């Protein structure tokens, strides 16, 4: 395993900063590339010109259509991909740290489907009641999904963890059971839904960034960024908990507080992501692993690194989804699952080696 081991503290910090800067640069490059490439091609110079013009410096006036596609459709979508990918990567890393297990992922343990179920319930039954207040229907959906995600997280934790130790097989089986249950419940609710909602079913099962708008992006940012910051700030505590909850308590960590914050934040991130873009699987599984494999297990890097790499991964997946069957689109979940499922199998096969 090619873990980079820094001899002293300072070089380790330096490596971490280098990795984070590198990931940020890749993300920025990918961001610009995603703005340029698509069914409606906008050249890179136009992209930069329109952004510069919008920011108030530069004189370039893009063609009306390019400007409209870029600012009205593509940019909110690409930004949404970044924030949701980052959130899912981070939530995966946080849940893995909390469960002390590298196989945990919001999709696998049923948190995403739990959120999706609550979101579907809200759409089918709640939207009519709340259609009078647009703000509530905008915020209500993610909050409902948050409740569903939180509920499933707590149930799974209750089932699989005893005195701070998680039983992997029980955890995965609990995830399978909850996924099946929530899937069935979603189906049941959709049975009572009208045709339009029915057609959206693939959206919930495979994920889609297609409907992104600036308003939705703002909702995502308001709900997900504070939660993400809360999680990232807990890196020392998560490091201590890797030794065990008991040991972390011995070292002065307030375990209950850390757990509550992680449960709530992870459910908030995943719930919001699910309500806005459906269940996009495997990002939260693959991303923290790649960071650990490459640069060690220190959560100082794993948490922020997972956010950046998750954003990169989902942006790249979305870029593919938009372009390989142009002008049609693939659901983005198909691409993340095609990448993630083989990786998951690899993890299962190598679990012994990884844990050692």
């Amino acid at each position: 395993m090619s873990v980079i081991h820094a001899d002293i503290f300072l070089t380790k910090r330096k490596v971490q900063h280098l990795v984070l800067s590198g990931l940020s640069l890749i993300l920025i490059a990918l961001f610009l590339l995603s703005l340029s490439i698509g069914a409606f091609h906008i050249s890179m110079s136009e992209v930069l010109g329109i952004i510069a013009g919008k920011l108030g410096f530069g004189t370039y006036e893009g063609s009306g259509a390019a400007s409209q596609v870029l600012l009205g459709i593509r940019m909110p979508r690409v930004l949404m991909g970044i924030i949701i990918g980052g959130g899912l990567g981070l939530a995966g890393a946080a849940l893995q740290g909390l469960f002390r297990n590298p196989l945990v992922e919001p999709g696998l343990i049923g948190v995403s489907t739990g959120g999706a179920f609550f979101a579907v319930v809200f759409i089918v039954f709640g939207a009519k009641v709340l259609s009078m207040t647009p703000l509530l229907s905008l915020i209500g959906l993610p909050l409902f999904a948050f409740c569903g995600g939180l509920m499933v997280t707590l149930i799974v934790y209750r089932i699989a963890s005893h005195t701070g130790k998680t039983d992997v097989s029980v955890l995965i089986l609990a995830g399978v059971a909850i996924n099946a249950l929530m899937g069935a419940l979603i189906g049941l609710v959709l049975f009572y839904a009208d045709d339009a909602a029915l057609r959206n079913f693939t959206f919930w099962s495979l994920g889609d960034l297609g409907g992104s708008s600036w308003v939705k992006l703002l909702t995502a940012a308001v709900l997900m960024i504070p939660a993400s910051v809360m999680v990232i700030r807990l890196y020392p505590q998560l490091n201590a908990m890797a030794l065990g909850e008991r040991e972390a308590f011995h070292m002065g960590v307030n375990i209950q507080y850390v757990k509550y914050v992680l449960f709530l934040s992870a459910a908030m991130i995943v719930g919001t992501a699910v309500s806005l873009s459906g269940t996009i699987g495997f990002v939260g599984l693959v991303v923290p692993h790649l960071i650990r494999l490459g640069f060690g297990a220190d959560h100082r890097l794993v948490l922020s690194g997972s956010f950046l790499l998750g954003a990169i991964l989902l942006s790249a997946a979305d870029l593919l989804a938009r372009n390989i069957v142009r002008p049609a689109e693939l659901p983005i979940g198909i691409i993340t699952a095609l990448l993630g499922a083989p990786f998951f199998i690899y993890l299962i096969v190598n679990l012994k080696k990884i844990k050692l």
Partner: protein
Amino acid sequence: MLQGRNIHFCISERPIIGEVNIVVAPGELTAIIGPNGAGKSTLFKLLSGDLTCNRGEISYNGKHIAGFKSNQLAKVRAVMPQHSEVSFPFSSWEIVALGMINDPAAISDRDIQAVMEKLQVWHLRAQAYNMLSGGEKQRVQLARVLVQVWKKQAFPRFILLDEPVSSMDVALQHLVLDFMNELKQRNIGILMVLHDLSLVANYADQVIMMKQGEVMANGHVSEVFTNQNLESLYGYPIHVEKHHQGLGLLVHSLPIHHINQRINKAL
């Protein structure tokens, strides 16, 4: 002073710890010994704050343990449990450095290095903890625990170690216990669950003998380490002798077939 008064603990009506009084003084090494299932580990967990006793009171420096927040308690006591597994590929150095998360300013990198060198694990600093041998893991964990209380403080601190040297070879066991002797001078009280009686005889100041959830005998090694006490503690003949050069104690027990031969001869 780490003090436990009338500690009682039971699991579903079955008493594990009957009625125990215990004092660990700073500057002393106190060893808990006793047969398997005597309640040593439970007592250890009660004292470290992992478990809460049903009756009785545990206090650190005169303050009730329930009155401490986890970060305050971590400044007064550090704990090394018997087994610790690490769930992700952390390096040994990272594990040791975790000892300072409660108070990152209290210890420098040079101090961490000094502790690791003293315990002969500095050369393992870059290796993944999970790849180490049992004895190496124990020394890394011990280094982590010591880092937590390394900075000198005005108030007494305590370290609780549950069989800290069980996987180490003889030379390392002596190295570690000698290091513990040095630590006592830092106004630190050490409480240790130990199985090796000759180590207890030669390094401990106070001994607490536990049997069936009760303290059977309690006092300075020179007073309580007698043939009779040890035999009734373990239910097996154990001999304590002065080393022929007058330094230290020898504790030994004969194998069962030798004892049988002796009995046969006597008959």
